[in-house]
C-alpha cells in the first residue's frame, strides 16, 4: 500500500544502494559456484585424485591455449542459445526442462533439410536451415506450451516426456531413413546421418579451430532477446505474466497465451542450438548430439540471473567448465560425470541462495521507503 501511495505522489525513491545490490546479486551465484567446486574438491580427494592438480588441469586446459579457449566458446554457443530460451520461459514463470528434446528437433531439421535441398547455394541454404531448425524446436516447445495453456498440464513433466520422445525419434531416424548410406555400403551401419553438403557448414571464425559463426549469431540473438523482453510490448507482457500472473489476469492479459508463447520461443532457441551443433560442429547428426546442453543451459541461465546479457558471460564460464572438465578427466583420470554432479550442486545452491538475494532486496526496499518518508516529512 505504502509503495503505491509513494509512486503516485513523489518520484520513486533514489536507489543509492543500487550498485551494491548488483554486486551482491552477482556474487551470490559465484559463491554458490565456489561452494559447489569446494564439494567437488572433497569428492576428488575421496576418489583419490589431488584436487589442486585436478582443478589446475581444468584451468590450464582451457586457458593454456588458443584451442582451449575456442573450444570453450564453441561449447558456450549452444549453452547461450538454450539459455536464452530458458530465460524467456522462466521470465514467464514457465519451467522449460525440454531443452534436450528441442535441441534434437532442431538438429533433426538441420540434417534433413540441407540433405533434401542439397543443391541450394550456401547463402540461401544456411539461413533457411536456421529458420527451419528454429521452427522445429518451437514446434517441440509448442506442444507442452499449448497443453499447459489449454489443459493446465504441468510443463515440467510434459517437457521431460517430450525429451524422451525426441531421443527415441532421433534414434529411429538415424538408424532408418536418415542413416548414412556410406555406413550401409561399408557394412558398419553406424547410427549417424550422412555428412552435410559443405556449403551449409557454418564458416569458421578462426582457421584451424572449431570456432564457427554460430557464436556471433548467439551473441547477436542475446542482444535481440534483451530488446525483445525489455523494449517490446510482448516482452513486457511475458515478464509481467511471470512476475504476477494474478494481477496480469485481472488486467485482462491472456496469461495462458503468453505462457504458451514463451515455451514455444524457448523451444525455438533450443532448436537453434541443435542447428549450430549440426551445421557448425558435427556437420552430421549423431547420437548424443545434445551433449546435455538442454540441462547445462538451465544452469547457465540461472547463473546469468535469467538475463540475456548476464547469460553471455555465464555461458562462456560454463563452456570453459565443460571443456576444462574434459581435460581434467584426462589429466587425473576422474570421470567427467563429476562435472555433471557439480552442475547439479550449482543449481541447488543458486536457487537456494535466492533467499538471501530476496531478503537483501526487501531490506533495501524498506530502507528506501523510510528514506523517502523522511524526505517527504522534511519537504512538508
Amino acid at each position, binding site marked *: 500500500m505504502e509503495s503505491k501511495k509513494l509512486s503516485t505522489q513523489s518520484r520513486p525513491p533514489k536507489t543509492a544502494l543500487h550498485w551494491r545490490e548488483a554486486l551482491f546479486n552477482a556474487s551470490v551465484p559465484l559463491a554458490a559456484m565456489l561452494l559447489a567446486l569446494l564439494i567437488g574438491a572433497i*569428492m576428488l580427494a575421496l*576418489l583419490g585424485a589431488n584436487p589442486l592438480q585436478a582443478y589446475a588441469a581444468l584451468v590450464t586446459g582451457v586457458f593454456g591455449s588458443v584451442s582451449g579457449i575456442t573450444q570453450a566458446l564453441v561449447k558456450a554457443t549452444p549453452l547461450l542459445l538454450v539459455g536464452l530460451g530458458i530465460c524467456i520461459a522462466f521470465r514467464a514463470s514457465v*519451467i522449460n*526442462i525440454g531443452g534436450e528434446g528441442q535441441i534434437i528437433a532442431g538438429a533433426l531439421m538441420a540434417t534433413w533439410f540441407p540433405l533434401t535441398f542439397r543443391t541450394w547455394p550456401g547463402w540461401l541454404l544456411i539461413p533457411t536451415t536456421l529458420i527451419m531448425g528454429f521452427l522445429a524446436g518451437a514446434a517441440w516447445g509448442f*506442444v507442452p506450451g499449448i*497443453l499447459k495453456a489449454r*489443459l*493446465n*498440464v*504441468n510443463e*515440467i*513433466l*510434459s517437457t*521431460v*516426456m*517430450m*525429451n*524422451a*520422445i525426441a531421443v*527415441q*525419434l532421433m*534414434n*529411429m531416424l538415424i*538408424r*532408418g531413413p536418415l542413416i548414412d548410406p556410406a555406413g550401409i555400403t561399408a557394412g558398419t551401419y553406424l547410427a549417424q546421418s550422412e555428412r552435410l553438403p559443405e556449403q551449409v557448414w557454418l564458416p569458421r571464425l578462426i582457421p584451424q579451430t572449431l570456432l564457427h559463426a554460430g557464436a556471433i549469431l548467439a551473441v547477436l540473438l542475446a542482444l535481440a532477446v534483451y530488446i525483445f523482453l525489455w523494449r517490446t510490448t510482448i516482452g513486457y507482457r511475458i515478464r509481467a505474466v511471470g512476475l504476477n500472473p494474478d494481477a496480469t489476469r485481472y488486467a485482462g492479459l491472456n496469461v495462458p497465451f503468453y505462457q504458451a508463447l514463451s515455451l514455444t520461443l524457448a523451444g525455438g532457441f533450443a532448436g537453434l542450438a541443435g542447428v549450430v551443433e549440426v551445421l557448425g560442429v558435427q556437420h552430421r547428426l549423431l547420437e548424443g548430439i545434445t551433449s546435455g546442453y538442454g*540441462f547445462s543451459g*538451465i*544452469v547457465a541461465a*540461472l547463473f546469468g540471473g535469467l538475463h540475456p546479457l548476464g547469460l553471455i558471460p555465464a555461458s562462456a564460464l560454463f563452456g570453459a567448465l565443460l571443456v576444462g572438465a574434459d581435460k581434467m578427466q584426462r589429466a587425473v583420470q*576422474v*570421470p567427467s*560425470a*563429476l*562435472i*555433471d*554432479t*557439480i*552442475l*547439479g*550442486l*550449482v*543449481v*541447488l545452491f543458486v*536457487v*537456494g*541462495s*535466492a*533467499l538471501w538475494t530476496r531478503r537483501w532486496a526487501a531490506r533495501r526496499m524498506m530502507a528506501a521507503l523510510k528514506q523517502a518518508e523522511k524526505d517527504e516529512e522534511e519537504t512538508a
Partner: protein
Amino acid sequence: MNQLFSLTVIAGILTSAIRLATPYLYAAIGEAFAQTSGVVNLGVDGIMLVSGYAAFYVTLQTGNVWLGLLAAMLVGLLMGLLMSFISVTLKAEQGISGIGLYMFGLGLSSLLFKVMVGTVKTVSGFPALKLPLLGDLPVIGPIFFQHSLPVYGAFLLVPVAWWVLDRTTWGLQIKAVGQNPAAADSLGVNVDRVRYFSVCVGAILAGMAGASLSIALLNLFQENMTAGQGFIAVALVYFGGWKPLGIMGGALLFSTVNAFQLWMQVLGVKIPSDVAIMMPYLLTIVALAVTVSRARQPAALNKPFERGEN
C-alpha cells in the same frame, strides 16, 4: 498377432506388469507424501539413481540384499534432507531445485559407478518368493503370488499410505500443511517440520524404488538406468489425484503398457523398438492432459511458506 492374445502371453504380460509397477509405486506414493505437504520434489529420478546404485554396490560387496535396501533408504533420506533444506528452509523455487537434485543424482550415480564398479556386473537380488497356497493357484498364482519381497511390499504400501494419510494425526497434519500452511501454523503445527518429514519419507520411498530396480527387478546397475521413471512417478501422483489407490491404478496402467511393449518385442511383432519405448512417455502426456484439469491439488502445492507473509 494371434499369439499375442493367447493365455500364456496375457498371463506373462500381467506378471510383468505387476513386477514393473513396483518402482512406480514406491516412488509415486513417496512423492504423494511430499506433495500432500505442499512440496513438489522433482528430484525423485535422481534419488532413485543414487539409491539404486547404493543398493547395488552394497549388495555386490556384502551379498546381503537387506543391507543393500538399508543403504538405499539411508541415501534416500540424505537426499531428502538436502531437498528439504533447499526447498523448505531456504524456500527455493521447488521446480528448479528438484531439477538440480536430479542432475546431482544422475551425475553422482554415474561417477560412483564408473569409479567403483566400471563394468556391468550382476548381483543376486531379492529371490522370488512363492506364497504358500496362493502361489500354487493356476494362472493367478504365477501372476500375483510368485514375486520377490519388494514387489509385495510395494502393493502393501498402498493401504498403509492410505491409512497414514487419511486416518492418522500425522496424515491430517501433512494435509493441513499442504492445504493451508498459515492456518496450520496458527494452530501450532510446525509447518517446516511436517514438510521435512513428508519430503524425507518420500525420499526414502524413492530410495526403495531405486533399490527395487537394482536389486529386485534387474539385479544390475547402469548409468541412468531409471530412464525417467522418477519423472513418470511424479506424473502418476497428479494422475492418481494424490490418492494411493488412484496412484496404484496409474502405476498398473503404465506398467501394463511397459510389459505389453516388452512382450511385443519378445514376440517379434513388427513395430520399431523406438516407437515401443516411446509409448510410456506419450501415455504420460496423454494421461496428464486427461486428468490434470479434474484433480484438486493441495492448495499450497509448490508454495514455500513464510510466516507473516499472508
